[in-house]
């Protein structure tokens, strides 16, 4: 399940991130305190070296010969890593510890120094007695100090190695607990029946999950609205087809029962007419249903006038048949970013409407022009116009101004409006040019 996989990845990522951060913080702390410790250790041991040297020098004043350093038993295992040498005049090795080499511990004859003697690294303190007769060198093997530091570091690391896995387990469980609201939500959504578009509860939801729930709720609302629209459209469409179907059936029954040829022919002609009408209605419904925003994702610019010329040419035979004069007034090229196929449908619907509602002998004028508001496509006729009270309603689906002899699907202007909306254009109804008829304008903001 996709949700589960996503949840796991959040969990794992949080675990890894938290563990790494903890580890890093810990390691930095360790490193810093290790360095501090090491530094303090050096100082402490150096101080010991210096003090041992001073003690030796203090002894030298009395009985150098009595000191049997050679056979002194090692007091502590650590003492084997410490050595001293006493040089007379700085040249002759007068006295030394068992662990000391024969070569000088350090070439430096004063203060602290580091040296390598016979492959061993030494930390050495050198000092002269007051008479400047004896040179005393006390050294300590570096290795000893390193071992000590290593032991300290190991002791510091140990708790980390134990607590890190424990911490990991706690983080794992904690994240799971933190993600529980998400799991509950995904359960709620997964259990839904497809027709259940009720909004999700938002009151008991944690702040982080709330945006997701709200987003889902907005989606549910949108889906429900589009479902409602679709349902209403289907109902309207079925309803609108009833009258043409009733007419076809009635005329067919009249034709079947007719005894006279004239009567039968008249009824059959009406059957054909009724089928044309129903066909036109279906075509318009499909056009409207197919108008989706995706259709105009790609927007190249096209010349409105060029498109208008083509549509006017296409509809001229219809106009001639109705004895209506169809004119395209002089105008300039007006480029508009649009989907040309849809704009042709828009133009065809407007011009076709104008021709349908025009009385014989009248003029339908098609215009394209540029105005301050943008590019305008306009169709004006000298027909009956649209009563003021119906002007807002004609854009609605299946609305027809009643009482006209003209048959229409009631969808033409809805299609025009939808196409205009898809292009961000506005469609307006105005009174005709000399106070009569109708002028429809579509304004594309450029």
């Amino acid at each position, binding site marked *: 399940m996709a949700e589960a996989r996503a949840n796991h990845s959040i969990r794992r990522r949080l675990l890894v991130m938290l563990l790494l951060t903890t580890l890093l913080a810990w390691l930095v702390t360790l490193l810093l305190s290790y360095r501090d410790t090491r530094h303090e250790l050096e100082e402490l041991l150096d101080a010991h070296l210096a003090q041992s040297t001073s003690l030796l020098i203090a002894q030298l004043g009395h009985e150098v010969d009595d000191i049997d350093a050679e056979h002194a038993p090692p007091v502590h295992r650590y003492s084997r890593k410490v050595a001293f040498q006493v040089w007379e005049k700085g040249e002759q090795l007068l006295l030394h510890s068992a662990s000391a080499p024969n070569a000088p511990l350090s070439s430096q004859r004063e203060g602290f120094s580091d040296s390598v003697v016979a492959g061993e690294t030494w930390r050495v303190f050198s000092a002269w007695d007051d008479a400047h007769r004896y040179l005393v060198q006390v050294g300590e093997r570096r290795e000893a100090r390193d071992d000590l530091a290593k032991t300290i570091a190991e002791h510091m690391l140990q708790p980390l190695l134990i607590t890190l896995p424990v911490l990991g387990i706690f983080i794992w469980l904690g994240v799971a607990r933190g993600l529980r609201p998400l799991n509950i939500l995904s359960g709620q959504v997964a259990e839904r029946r497809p027709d259940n578009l009720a909004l999700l509860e938002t009151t008991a939801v944690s702040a982080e999950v709330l945006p997701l729930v709200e987003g889902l709720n907005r989606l549910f609302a949108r889906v429900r609205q589009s479902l409602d629209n679709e349902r209403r459209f289907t109902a309207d469409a079925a309803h609108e087809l009833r009258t043409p179907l009733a007419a076809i059936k*009635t005329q067919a029954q009249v034709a079947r029962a007719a005894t006279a040829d004239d009567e039968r022919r008249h009824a059959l002609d*009406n059957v054909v*007419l009724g089928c044309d009408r129903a066909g036109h209605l279906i075509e318009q419904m499909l056009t409207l249903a197919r108008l989706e925003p995706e259709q105009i994702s790609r927007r190249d610019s096209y010349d409105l006038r060029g498109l208008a010329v083509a549509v006017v040419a296409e509809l001229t035979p219809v106009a001639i048949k109705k004895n209506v004069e169809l004119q395209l007034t002089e105008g300039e090229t007006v480029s508009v970013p649009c989907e040309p196929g849809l704009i042709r449908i828009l133009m065809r619907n407007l011009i076709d409407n104008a021709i349908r509602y025009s009385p014989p002998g009248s003029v339908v004028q098609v215009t394209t022009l540029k105005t301050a508001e943008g590019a305008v496509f306009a169709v004006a006729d000298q027909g009956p116009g649209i009563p003021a009270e119906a002007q807002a309603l004609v854009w609605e689906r299946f609305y027809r101004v009643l009482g006209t002899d003209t048959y229409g699907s009631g969808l033409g202007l809805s299609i025009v409006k939808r196409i205009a909306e898809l292009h961000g254009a506005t469609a307006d109804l105005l009174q005709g040019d000399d106070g009569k008829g109708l002028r429809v304008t579509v304004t594309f903001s450029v």
Partner: protein
Amino acid sequence: MRILLVEDDKLLGDGIQAGLVQAGFAVDWVRDGALGAAALKTESYAAVVLDLGLPKISGLDLLQNLRAEANAVPVLILTSRDAIDDRIRGLDSGADDYMVKPFDLDELAARLRALTRRSRGEAASVLRMDGLELNPAEHRVQFRGNDVELTAREFSLLHELMLHAGRVLSREQLEQRLYAWGEEIESNAIEVHVHHLRRKLSPELVRTVRGVGYVMPRGEHG
């Protein structure tokens, strides 16, 4: 029988008119509610076929006005809305029957016959009198057991006379019930049809009441 059809759709109205004429009705067809109301004020109809989506005055308003004026003419509504609410509203507004588009023309004619029969308080659909039998649905007339061939107009005339047996009907009343608007009526048309009926059936069947009209006497023939 004369029917008023109020239907704004041109093709459907034309079809219903033609179909009802075929079924033997005289049909006046108007295409908006205002004309329908005017027709109902001036003429008397056996029944009204009423579409609901009408210009000027809606079908429901027309119906309510009609009932408010105590006009009891049987009304059958045609509706493209088949939701129960719409039907209930139609019937509650005073409709006697309804049909949902697309409907069957023969059924429409049958329902109209039933409506007019019920409005006269009759139960039987076949009219019987003195050896005469008239079946409105089948458009058949039998006299003393034999089929009689009648023209559509003769059939309608006989139907009207039988429906109002015992009552004198004037020539104008008969013309009004037999002819729709715009139908050509010869001045002596009714006389001619009565003459044909007497010839095809029996001379005594229809009596002339001089200066008044015609009557079909009730229960004289044996």
